[in-house]
């Protein structure tokens, strides 16, 4: 990107701890550009250029800022500028036509320290970045809402989770395979393998990085499908605060208070934020559930603090703490006088400390310690049988230590390496054996700029797990800049995932969708116990004979390739191909039917599964102030061993396929096999962001389409074919509107989610239309 930065005369100004910044912004033709947004980070100063294309920030604290200048239809400019006391720095710059900040922030030069020396954008796998501004404009409040609008990402209710948990699915991988990290540290608290993303408020998020594809090399065994790294805000250079309040449908209330300030003359900074969120929940199945909800109501409290102190010129200390509490109760009446009551209290505590030291230019070290505690107290009483069906106090503790080094050997080569270990304990009233899991890991990653156009990356990670042995996972990638308009990226990597305690031992009941999940090791005895209690309608003996213990660890190999093409300045096209090959993928399977048609699942290994597909996204700026983007993913997720068995005519796959609608039956062919449950073939999204200048309003409208996906095997032939139960494809349309006042201090927002009010009883977690109005006020000195 070409820019012109001219620092003109330094004009003395009043005050010794403050300085100023002023400047002029020109467009690509050299004409003055009014209405461009100029931002300074940290501290989030925002200003718009006036009619003459000029802007001025006066009386800002001295320090090093990242300045970004953006305008819809132009490439965002970013750079670093230093504000000195008593002077006003003067900037003149020229913007180039292109796509703007909303999708991706590409910062030239090194990214500021985020608590992790590993460079996500150097991963071999495709990377999507969601900036804070985009999150604000979308009006999204919870993490799952932000993520599900990205191309190729969907939010699913996986079998293993409860009504409360919403999990991600990326490129065909379920949420058990996607690692969630905060500033590079993994978040614990996976309820039955699903991670409840709705627990995380977005109010403190700076940026979200989404890496798709096997990233075990970077992040370890839970990242077969990819990783979502949530980068939080840090390091203010002037005191500031924020108060926000949103209210709307379902009595949703979302209130936040934040404040941060530097102290000791910029040697340190501290910040705190508090958030309260509540919802009434909703019922997507009013026909069969007379009163009560399928998605639960809850109250969520979150408190966060961050502290940063520069110990010396070369070292700094970062401390963070995060506490969350969620209380929820759900009552459901099926209309037969049977009411189930389901309560869950979740507590979530994260503490982190890291020490960052620069030995000499080019050699940095970071040491960190991380502690997480997650506790969930869940009890379900099923009145009919007068028993507590599942009473579950689940506690999970993780201690993690990691030592990282980053070394730059000349301008072309950067090396990062590290080692660490973790100790995880899980005690759960339902688990028969409380256990501990200890791991040790070490990794090295190299980043090599082979030539001006070609960059390569390679990495290697070693993991050792106390129950599943060790594994070495490599990753490779390369990036080639064909010309100024076209670049190509390709990568390959492997991944590894050990079955966790839950898939092996836990018996878990989900009242919302009326199913039971039984861990593999305790399957036979649990079924027998249920049968004694008269709770079983049918057991699929064939499956039972095949299962029973010995779940194997999963291994995957991923290939990704993609290109970014910018044929014209207002058009950008990204396309990619992915291919993931999984051995022994752990998948849930129905092994029995309980009384009242309750499905009973357990886990099995799918010998050879494949997720493959393409994704494409297009960003256009057809007119000034309007940006339109569209994305599409095609996915095929299949278990190859089923296809082979159909082909070979092995029982039970040689049974005829039955169509219950007509009663006809015919011999199956491998092409009759549709694919794995819960994966859609087609996903599509369309977004438009528009800035209406006369009223100074930002508005956007987003439509997401998720193609139909299989829910379960209805005709009893042990694989998904076209006659089985499918959840219909659907559209979700969201829109938001924002207006700022008082020089960007105050913003009013109106958000509408699911405008078409689409619900389906097979999607218990998807609410109908939700409309919220909100107000945010930023407190800072201009």
């Amino acid at each position, binding site marked *: 990107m070409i820019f012109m930065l001219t620092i003109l005369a330094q004009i003395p100004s009043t005050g010794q701890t403050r300085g100023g910044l002023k400047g002029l912004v020109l467009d690509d033709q050299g004409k003055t550009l009014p209405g461009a947004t100029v931002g300074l980070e940290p501290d989030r100063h925002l200003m718009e250029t006036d009619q003459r294309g000029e802007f001025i920030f006066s009386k800002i604290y001295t320090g090093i800022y990242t300045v970004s200048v953006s305008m819809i239809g132009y490439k965002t400019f970013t750079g670093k500028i230093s504000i000195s006391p008593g002077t006003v720095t003067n900037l003149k710059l020229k913007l180039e036509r292109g796509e703007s900040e909303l999708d991706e922030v590409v910062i030239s030069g090194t990214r500021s320290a985020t608590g992790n020396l590993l460079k996500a954008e150097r991963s071999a796998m495709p990377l999507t970045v969601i900036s804070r501004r985009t999150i604000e404009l979308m009006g999204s409040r919870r993490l799952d809402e932000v993520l599900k609008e990205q191309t190729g990402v969907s939010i699913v209710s996986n079998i293993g989770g409860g009504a409360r948990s919403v999990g991600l699915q990326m490129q065909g991988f379920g949420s058990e395979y996607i690692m969630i990290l905060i500033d590079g540290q993994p978040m614990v608290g996976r309820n039955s393998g699903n991670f409840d993303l709705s627990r995380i408020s977005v109010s403190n998020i700076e940026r979200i990085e989404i890496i798709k594809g096997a990233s075990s090399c970077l992040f370890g065994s839970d990242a077969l499908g990819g990783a979502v790294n949530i980068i939080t805000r840090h390091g203010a250079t002037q005191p500031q605060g924020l108060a926000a309040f949103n209210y709307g449908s379902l009595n949703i209330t979302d209130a936040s208070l934040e404040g941060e300030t530097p102290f000791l003359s910029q040697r340190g900074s501290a910040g705190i934020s508090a958030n309260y969120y509540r919802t009434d929940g909703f019922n997507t199945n009013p026909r069969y559930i007379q009163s009560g909800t399928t998605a639960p109501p809850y109250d969520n409290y979150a408190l966060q603090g961050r502290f940063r102190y520069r110990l010396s010129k070369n070292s700094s200390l970062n401390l963070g703490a995060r506490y969350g509490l969620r209380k929820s109760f759900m009552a459901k009446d099926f209309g037969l006088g049977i009411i189930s009551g389901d309560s869950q209290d979740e507590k979530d505590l994260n503490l982190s400390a890291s020490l960052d030291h620069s030995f000499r230019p080019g050699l940095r070290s970071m040491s960190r310690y991380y502690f997480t505690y997650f506790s969930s107290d869940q009890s379900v009483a099923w009145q009919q049988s007068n028993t507590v069906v599942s009473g579950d106090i689940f506690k999970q503790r993780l201690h993690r230590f990691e030592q990282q080094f980053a070394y730059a050997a000349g301008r072309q080569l950067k090396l990062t390496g590290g080692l660490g270990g973790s100790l995880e304990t899980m005690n759960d009233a339902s688990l028969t054996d409380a256990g501990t899991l200890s791991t040790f890991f070490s990794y090295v990653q190299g980043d090599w700029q082979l030539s001006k156009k070609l960059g390569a990356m390679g990495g290697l990670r070693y993991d050792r797990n106390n129950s599943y042995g060790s594994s070495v996972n490599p990753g490779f990638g390369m990036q080639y800049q064909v010309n100024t308009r076209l670049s190509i990226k390709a990568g390959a990597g492997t991944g590894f995932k050990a079955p966790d305690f839950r898939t092996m031992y836990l018996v878990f009941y989900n009242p919302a969708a009326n199913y039971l999940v039984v861990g593999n090791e305790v399957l036979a005895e649990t079924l027998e116990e249920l049968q004694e209690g008269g709770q079983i309608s049918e057991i699929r003996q064939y499956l039972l004979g095949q299962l029973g213990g010995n779940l194997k660890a999963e291994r995957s190999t991923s290939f990704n390739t993609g290109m970014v093409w910018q044929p014209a300045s207002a058009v950008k096209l990204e396309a990619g191909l992915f291919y993931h090959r999984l051995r022994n993928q752990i998948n849930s399977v129905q092994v029995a039917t309980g009384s009242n*048609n309750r499905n009973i699942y357990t886990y099995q290994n799918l010998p050879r599964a494949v997720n493959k597909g393409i994704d494409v996204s297009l960003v256009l700026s057809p007119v000034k102030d309007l940006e339109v983007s569209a994305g599409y993913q095609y996915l095929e997720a299949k278990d190859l061993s089923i296809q082979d068995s159909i082909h070979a005519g092995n029982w039970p796959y040689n049974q005829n396929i039955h169509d219950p609608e007509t009663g006809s039956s015919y011999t199956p062919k491998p092409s009759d096999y549709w694919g794995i449950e819960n994966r859609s073939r087609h996903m599509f999204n369309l977004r438009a962001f528009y800035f209406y200048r006369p009223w100074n309003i930002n508005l956007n409208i987003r439509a997401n389409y998720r193609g139909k996906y299989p829910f379960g095997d209805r*005709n009893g032939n042990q694989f998904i074919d076209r006659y089985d139960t499918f959840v219909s494809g659907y559209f979700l349309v969201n829109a938001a509107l924002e207006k700022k006042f008082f020089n960007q201090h105050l913003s009013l927002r109106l958000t509408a989610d699911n405008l078409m009010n689409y619900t389906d009883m097979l999607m218990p977690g998807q609410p109908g239309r939700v409309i919220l109005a909100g107000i945010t006020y930023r407190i800072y000195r201009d």
Partner: protein
Amino acid sequence: MKMSSKNLLFHLVILLLAGACKKDENPAAELQDGKSTVILDLAGDTEAAMSENTPGKVKRPFNIFLFRFKDQKQIWIRNAADSAKYLKTSEWDIAFTGPYNSEIYVNDKSYPYNPGYGGAAESAVVLLHQAYERVVMAPADSEFDNSDITKIGWAASESSGGWFFYSLSSHIMQAIPNRTYVLRLPDGKYAKLQLLNAYKGNPPSVTDLNWPAPYLTFRYYVQQDGSRNLSATD
């Protein structure tokens, strides 16, 4: 590339309208009348078979199961302990016995082959050759007293009281339409019952011998106020 925003809006609206409509995928929808209880695909003894070498199944007698109308409880009778515990009680309303659980008995203590023989309950059943929706009134007590239906299963001919024909050429069970059973329950209440299918998914007819079975589909309505009114629509 210039696209007017109007054009864009138009396309968006088309997409939205297309996605707004959704089919009702509920397979039992046409059986529902709002009052009757519809039981779909209740698993019978899917492990047993009539003959050797049936893949996935074992040649052995079929375990019977009992069914209770009020809470749809399925009670399996697998051994002597289960028999002793449940058969001679009023804990069940109908029993599914015989091959593929296709022979249904109403709980009656007086008939020797009835699972409830010598027990506590006295039910009677008559067959009406009418569609389920059209049965609105239970017949007089004399009809129940004179009824000679002992077991509801295979109909050897049109004159039989059974609920399905067995086709000799294809060896497939075919449910007979327009047969509704009216029950007089031990507590004096009246109920109507329709037996629909023993094949999974309630297909209209079946040609494959290996269609998953038995998965019983049936529906019933119990008139709680004790009257003879069996109309299940308002």
